[in-house]
């Protein structure tokens, strides 16, 4: 009798089978992980854009015309966009909408595809003030088209300020101790640099401050801190701060003005005499997109006057195509300052790539950490 034998071989067989099974399981897992990037069917576009930039109001028209499906992911900040693109998921998206602060570094990192502007008939209609900027150009090629833009204006509670404040300096007024909110973003140091006059004669100098200038900005911001109730991080948060009467003054976006007006909150918006910073959001096609042709058509569609008008309706931001103004009511034109667009744009120093972003950030962290 050999009772042990068959048992051993059975065991061996089982081991063998289980190894095969395991290999198979690993294979399946790899397949499942890999297919994440293969789910993009031809004829579909994946967007990674700001909230509101893929609203059904205007995207559906494109989907119907081209029989495709548009899937949008939203980003919470420029940082998140860059982190996702650099983190290796660049191939998951076809179209992105970086703001002008990170647009240049995305181009320099080779994450965006060069565009042949002759394939975008609407490109010629765009505001030359925007297309002439060097933000998304490198080696004589264009890597993005302007989509929407806007300022970072001073917002104020009109029950406290019957007249719009004239200067950003009002934020420092001891009368408004604990009644001010600023954006938890480098835009706040830019604003302090403007108050200190570092934007003269060259406005872009605020994006290239020296160490001494940064030190002065830091000092100025530290003086502001007793007045700051809360640094806001999302649009909804600032809207809330005004609504709950936590603050009466803030640096904000036109989006919050639109939101608060809808809620019948007495909000005012102004660009003080020192001017302000602002942003231009560009549409870009990622270098690794597999649907470049369809993406091109989508970008063209998005900068046509009719879609631009709808995008403006949704977001409250200004359209890059001035032709959109012709489709608006006189009131809407006035609200967006499109009736006097050249003068208005001149008051905005659009965000640029900040070569010493890490240094700026370190200073901003020091300001935030101080008690």
């Amino acid at each position, binding site marked *: 009798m050999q009772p042990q034998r068959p048992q051993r071989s059975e065991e061996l067989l*089982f081991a063998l089978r289980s190894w095969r099974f*395991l290999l198979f399981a690993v294979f399946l897992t790899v397949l499942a992980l890999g297919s994440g990037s293969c789910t993009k069917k031809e004829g579909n576009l994946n967007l990674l854009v700001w909230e509101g930039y893929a609203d059904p109001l205007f995207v559906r028209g494109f989907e119907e015309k081209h029989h495709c499906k548009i899937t949008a992911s939203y980003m919470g*900040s420029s940082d*998140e966009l860059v982190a996702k693109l650099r983190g290796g998921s660049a191939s998951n998206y076809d179209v992105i909408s970086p703001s002008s602060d990170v647009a240049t570094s995305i181009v320099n990192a080779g994450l965006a595809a060069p565009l042949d502007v002759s394939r975008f008939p609407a490109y010629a209609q765009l505001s030359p003030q925007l297309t002439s900027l060097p933000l998304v150009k490198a080696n004589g090629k264009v890597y993005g088209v302007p989509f929407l833009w806007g300022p970072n204006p001073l917002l104020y509670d009109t029950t406290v300020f019957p007249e719009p404040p004239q200067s950003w300096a009002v934020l420092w007024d001891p009368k408004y101790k604990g009644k001010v909110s600023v954006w938890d973003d*480098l835009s706040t140091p830019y604003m302090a640099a403007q108050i200190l006059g570092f934007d003269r004669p060259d406005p872009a100098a605020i994006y290239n401050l020296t160490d001494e200038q940064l030190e002065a900005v830091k000092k100025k911001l530290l003086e502001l801190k007793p007045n700051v109730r809360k640094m806001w991080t999302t649009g909804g948060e600032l809207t809330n701060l005004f609504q*709950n009467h*936590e603050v009466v003054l803030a640096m904000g976006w036109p989006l919050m003005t639109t939101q608060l007006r809808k809620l019948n909150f007495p909000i005012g918006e102004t660009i003080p005499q020192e001017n302000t910073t602002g942003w231009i959001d560009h549409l870009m096609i990622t270098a690794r997109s597999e649907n470049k042709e369809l993406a091109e058509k989508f970008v063209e569609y998005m900068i046509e006057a009719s879609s631009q008008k709808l995008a403006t309706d949704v977001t409250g931001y200004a359209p890059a195509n001035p032709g959109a103004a012709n489709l608006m009511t006189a009131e809407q034109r006035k609200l967006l300052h499109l009736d006097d667009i050249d003068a208005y744009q001149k008051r905005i120093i659009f965000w640029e790539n900040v070569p010493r*972003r*890490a240094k700026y*950030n370190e200073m901003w962290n020091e300001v935030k950490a101080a008690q």
Partner: protein
Amino acid sequence: MYSRAYKTIITLPPLVWVTLFLLVPYALLFAYSFWSVTPDQVVVHNWNLGNYAELLRTPVYLQVLFRSMRIALSVTILSLALGFPLAYYLSFHCHKHKSLIYQLVIIPLWVSYLVLAYAWKTILGSTGVLNTLLMYFHIVKEPVSFLLYSQFAVILTLVHIYTPFTFLPIYAALEQIPRHLIEASQDLGATPRQTFRKVIWPLSLPGVIAGATFAFVLSFGDFFSPLLIGGPGGIMISNVVYSVFGAAYNWPLGAAISFCMLVLVVALLQCAEHGERRWSFS
């Protein structure tokens, strides 16, 4: 007994999991902390200690690190001060509605963290529940502003969130204490205070240590409370890490800070484990 194949199948998945999702990421984090980033924000693999030097040179990082530890310590002490009496009461003196009270205590664990933070916002705000009440009863004339957007609010919220975390292990430890030990202590003429000091407290120490570790480690790395309800000067170390990774695109420096945090936390966990083993009953 168990065949080798069985053992392989049982051990392989956790091994793969730990390697893929813990060891490899930690190794990457460690490697990143020795690299550097060019002004064009490209990470270069030139091994150096620059990030750690920067960490020591720039006061802001250590300052925020110590502040986070201080906040975490306050949260730990307060959570213990709330969690221990609660667990003690429930374990020794509550008989009737024991399970009901138990459920009530751990309910905050089931509620999303963000909801809890937002709830405190509506309570502590200038037009919030508390200020409205205070003004209604003419206790104050102006809304009390230090309640919200301050370190006070951060600590309060964290204590609220992490008290169940300290409560649970302490309660488990107290429940495990054999009741005849307490009876023996009483039989031998110990006063209630002596029984507590010489029997209950030492036997509950493993639970206390586990609870304190939970509260400290979780609140040390907290990100949302300072962001949502912290004051303009109340950022914690996770907020700094976030901005260094994000706004500054300096992954190597962010990795260096994260690695220091990791070392601190692991060291603390080791001490806690050592303490738990030393004082554990049996």
